[in-house]
Structures are given as C-alpha cells and as structure tokens.
C-alpha cells in the first residue's frame, strides 16, 4: 500500500516537472535553429516583431509560436528585412499593406476601432453611475 503511494507521488512530481518544462520552452517552440540570426540584438528585434504578427492560418497564434509554413516564411522574411536594414515600422507596414490590420494581434487605434478600444470604459462608467444612483435612492428610502 505504501509502495503504491510512493509511486503515485513520483508520477505526480514528474507530471508537475513536465508541466513547468513545457512553460519554459513554450515561447521558443516554433522558431527553428536555421532561422535564428547570428546577431543577438537583431534576433531579439525579429522575435519581438514576430510576437505581434498573427499567423493567418491559425489566427489566434502569433507567427512566433506557430509551426505553419506561412508563419515560418514570414519569420524568415522579417529577418531578411532586418538584415537589409529596414526599421520595425517599415516591416509592420510591409505586412499590413499585404494582409491588412488583421495580421497585427493588437488592433491599432483608428477611427473604426475606437468603439472596440473605448466602449468597455464607457460601459464601466455607466455601471458605476447606476450603482451610485441606486445607492442614493435606497438611502433616501431608509431616511
């Protein structure tokens, strides 16, 4: 009986360890060794851009996390552009010119996305006002 408990305990520890290992390696899963730039500074720039670019095939993953072939092509393209000396803004523009704003994981603040960005705050404000209004009324009734 005790033996069984020890084995179960060990299995549990292994599962937890695997879970943490997974967490640590999660962000470098998709980038393959042959893609990585020699200059670590440029590589970090490439990784940062890739994290903001949506994989058009998987849609809720960035190209930094995705194993799709288009994601790989885009990662290589970003690195090529960095090597050519292009600025980050120019690379983002190249991608949005072709794929639209949808390729950015964070929608930019524009006239047609203002509602998306600020309506939550408006609703929050309305909620607060309703609570205050309600409070005031119930106090009046008590008095």
């Amino acid at each position, binding site marked *: 009986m005790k033996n069984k408990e020890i084995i179960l305990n060990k299995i549990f520890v292994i599962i937890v360890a695997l879970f943490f290992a997974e967490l640590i390696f999660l962000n470098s899963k998709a980038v393959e060794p042959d893609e990585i730039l020699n200059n670590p500074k440029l590589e970090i720039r490439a990784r940062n851009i890739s994290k903001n670019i949506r994989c058009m095939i998987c849609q809720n993953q960035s190209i930094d996390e995705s194993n799709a072939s*288009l994601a790989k092509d885009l990662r290589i393209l970003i690195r090529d552009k960095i090597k050519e000396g292009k600025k980050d803004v120019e690379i983002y523009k190249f991608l949005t010119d072709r*794929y*639209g704003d949808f390729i950015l994981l964070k929608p930019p603040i524009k006239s047609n996305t203002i509602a998306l960005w600020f309506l939550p705050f408006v609703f929050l404000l309305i909620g607060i006002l309703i609570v205050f209004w309600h409070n005031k009324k119930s106090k009046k009734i008590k008095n």
Partner: protein
Amino acid sequence: MKKQILILPLLFFILLLIAFFYILVIERNPSEIPSNLLNKNVPVFKADSLIKKEKFISSKEFGNQILLVNFFATWCKPCRDEHIYIKRFSSNLNIRVVGINYKDDPKKTLRWLKNLGNPYSNIALDKTGKIAIEWGVYGIPETFIVNSKGVIKYRRVGPINEKIFKKINIIIDKINNEE
C-alpha cells in the same frame, strides 16, 4: 415611470439576441479575411515560368486585359477540386488565367497538368512562397480577378465551386461593362 425603465434591459437583451442570431444565420465565413489589396495594383515580381522559356515578368502579364490569377499546387486537394472550374473559365469563356504554382515540384506540376489539362496561359513558379506573401495569400487555392489596368478587383480564398464560379462571372461582366 420606474417600472417602465425596468423594461429597458430586456429590450436591450432582445436586440442583442437578434443581432447575434442574424450574424449566425447569414452566410459568413469568419476565417475569410477581406483582401487588403482590393482596388490596388498587382504586386511587381519576376519568376521562372513553368511552361515558357522566358521569365515570368508581372508587368508583361498584367494590365492588358481582364484575367484571373490562380494560386495552386499539386499537393493541395481543393486545387484539384476547383480545376474543372478554372478550365471552364479558360476554354468555355475565353478568360485568360495566369497560374502561380505555390511551393511545388515543377515535374509533378507538369504531370498534373498533363493529366487534368492546362487552363493557364502562363505559370509562375513560386518556390519559396514569396510571391504569395506579396499578394497577401494565406491559404491556397486563392483566386484573384485583375482588370485590364492591372488592378485587383476580387479575391477568393478557397476553392471555386458552382456558386463562386457564377459570382466571378457576374463580377467580370460588371468590370467589362464599366470599361
């Protein structure tokens, strides 16, 4: 007055329900993203041609007449499914179709075209997928309508079926009337 206000949340909820139901019912594919290249000039590119000796140069191919641009590959099953419609465009309707062979083996493509028939007037080889990125392509097959000025007027993501075939015909007729 107080009771009348209580009905507001209910009304709001019903409106939301109607809106969601409407979006659910209309024919809409959420994974289909509108092209950012609509009403813009075709990308400029140069590539090897599969069926001609001279290079495929975009400025020579586009801007002379209305044509279809079809991204395809032999390894893509939906491309095989839509092939019959691509052939209909070129042989029955006399519309020029330019093919872009995406990440494929040229030998296999030649064999594929021999078996199924070749509807393409010229085929550019996109070995690395860079031409596809220039066109904002993310899932083949994809088909574009380019007008006689070299401007992209329509993009279809996914295979052409009977319904899309008719839709493309209507759009081409419309472009022809405008020009």
